[in-house]
């Protein structure tokens, strides 16, 4: 067993850290207040290759492994959750699905420009009336000759108004005995006639990011845009979540680290009763818990990343990492505010933003409640993972780097 990151991993980490420290952290508070995504974020992440980090070079990516994706997600969320969200949707939920399920033509057409950062990608599963109840979705796709016609609405879609491509899951067979089997996945170019997108404002957190909706009214797309087979949509969506949740877990780990680092600094700086507050045991307890959850969350996501590298199914492990890290990040951010006292309650310090940003991830990509059901299901033997027609390919350095 080897717990050491490779030199390559450490250099990737440092590079992304340098980027966020120089370019993002100094301005992020301003964009959070404006409730807008800074216009430079996506082009800059594209230019630096971050948007294609773990896609093989042959498909326009940088050819790094899945652990690198986790490390990048952690670093990005230390700066701001909205940057990690970009990796969750563009990479985890969309580009990796193309890598896993796409035909060679689809990879060339959609994955290559996404990995190069020329096109941005998002993922549309949730609807105004269907969240955890995925199979309750109403949006439909009807086959008409060589086309499908899409109608419906997707809600709470990160990057909806910024992305060029969306992976959407729609109902193709309303009569399927099991509603899960009536769903199909598609790649939708968002500039097609009848497709509209917009942003949602007034969110508690991730205010410097883009969260929105996609509306589809008689949108015609060619059959070639169907990802996988008809009726495979639910399985594809769940496999997307295995990858999206991985980035969320790694990101939430970064948020714990940010809360911890801010709390350590403040504990040294702030004095009460003539000593620095770090000297007080109840402050120490908070710091100790943050250290504990940071290290545990980190090990959990790195294990999931290692399993992805090996090509081993990791639905259970990824769910566990996501559940633990997001809950722990909410707790850590809340305690960081407590350490900062009244100052933590004001946006003069970053910790109130950490708390607001942490809450979303406890809800999306499987609420904490869903993850508890999953974990109990595995433990009790009620749940097991059936083999997929297309598994996420194991990381093969030779193949990836050419």
């Amino acid at each position, binding site marked *: 067993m080897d717990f050491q990151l490779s*030199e*390559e991993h450490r*250099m990737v980490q440092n590079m992304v850290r340098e980027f966020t420290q120089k370019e993002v952290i100094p301005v992020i508070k301003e964009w959070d207040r404006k409730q807008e995504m800074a216009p430079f974020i996506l082009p800059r992440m594209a230019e*630096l*290759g971050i948007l294609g*980090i773990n896609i093989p070079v042959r498909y326009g990516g*940088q*050819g790094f492994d899945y652990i690198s994706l986790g490390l990048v997600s952690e670093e990005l969320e230390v700066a701001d959750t909205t940057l990690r969200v970009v990796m969750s949707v563009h990479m985890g939920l969309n580009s990796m699905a193309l890598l896993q399920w796409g035909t060679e033509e689809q990879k060339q057409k959609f994955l290559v420009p996404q990995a190069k950062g020329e096109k941005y990608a998002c993922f549309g599963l949730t609807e105004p009336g269907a969240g955890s109840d995925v199979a309750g979705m109403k949006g439909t796709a009807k086959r008409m000759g060589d086309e499908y016609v899409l109608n419906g609405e997707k809600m709470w879609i990160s990057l909806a108004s910024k992305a060029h491509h969306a992976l959407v899951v729609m109902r193709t067979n309303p009569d399927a005995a099991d509603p899960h089997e009536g769903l199909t996945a598609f790649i939708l170019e968002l500039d097609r006639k009848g497709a509209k997108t917009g942003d949602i404002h007034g969110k508690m957190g991730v205010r410097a990011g883009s969260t929105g909706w996609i509306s589809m009214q008689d949108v015609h797309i060619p059959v070639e845009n169907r990802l996988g087979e008809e009726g495979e949509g639910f399985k594809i969506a769940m496999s997307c979540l295995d990858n999206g949740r991985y980035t969320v877990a790694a990101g939430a780990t970064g948020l714990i680290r940010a809360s911890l680092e801010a709390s350590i600094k403040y504990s040294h700086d702030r004095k009460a009763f003539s000593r620095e507050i770090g000297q007080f045991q109840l402050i120490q307890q908070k710091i100790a818990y943050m250290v504990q959850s940071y290290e545990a969350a980190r090990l959990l996501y790195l294990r999931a990343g290692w399993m992805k590298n090996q090509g081993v199914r990791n639905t259970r492990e990824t769910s566990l990492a996501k559940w633990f890290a997001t809950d722990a990040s909410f707790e850590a951010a809340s305690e960081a505010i407590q350490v900062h006292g009244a100052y933590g309650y004001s946006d003069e310090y970053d910790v109130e933003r950490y708390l607001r940003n942490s809450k979303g991830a406890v809800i999306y990509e499987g609420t904490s409640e869903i993850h508890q059901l999953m974990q109990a299901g595995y433990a009790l033997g009620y749940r097991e993972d059936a083999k997929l027609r297309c598994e996420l390919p194991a990381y093969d350095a030779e193949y990836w780097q050419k």
Partner: protein
Amino acid sequence: MKIAVFVKQVPDSAAKMTVADGKPNWGDAPLVINPWDEYAVEAALQLAEKHGGEVTAVTVGGEGAKEALKHALAMGCSQAVLISDPALSAPDSSAIAHVLAAAVKKLDGVDLAIFGKQAIDSDTGITAAMTARILGWPALTLVAAIQQLDPAAKTVRVERGIEEGRQIVDGKLPAVFSIAKDFGEPRYPSFMGIRKASKAEIPIWALADLGIAAPQSKVSWPEISAPPQREVSNEMITGGSADEIAAKLADKLIAEGVL
């Protein structure tokens, strides 16, 4: 064009430095490439991109100093050389300059030897000039911009950033440069560069490879001490009017010898 860029491995500027028994200690903080040298690497890469040619990064130190070279490789340098020799235990700037001048000769055909303006640990800022002196090349120090460079005519015109403003200096190649911050923000390592750097085999040259004996250091640091802690006290000056407060303040400043 052949470009050599010289980098140094130094403690991270964010590291907390303490002094014990006359020796500095920065705990387990990582060593990083000297931040000023990143500007030098940036300049070297820009010149190579513009005029063609390759950039070799060179450092002197132990195995750990390879990190600085890997950073330079990841930024885009084509190759790197580590100069390491047990005889170089506590070299001063002059000894390093002798070693680097010998390295420039061994690299053969170097047109531009580029340095950062100083290292953040020893802060002498003279290695570039000393190396130029030993090579007999022009020393173009504190370069903020390169206005013209003609590899065929072997001429260069630079802007030096000096206290009074910018000084335009013409020089002949080959030349030694030290690069100031005004040159422009250094690029980050690229992912492709990182991969190349992590796989790179970095050759190690000993003094024998350079064909020189261990140069004598003329300066040594027998002891290092932390600056004394400053005693600071606060006093609130009050009074009935601004004039009264100002008068009290002026009296105090005069009494303290500040004015």
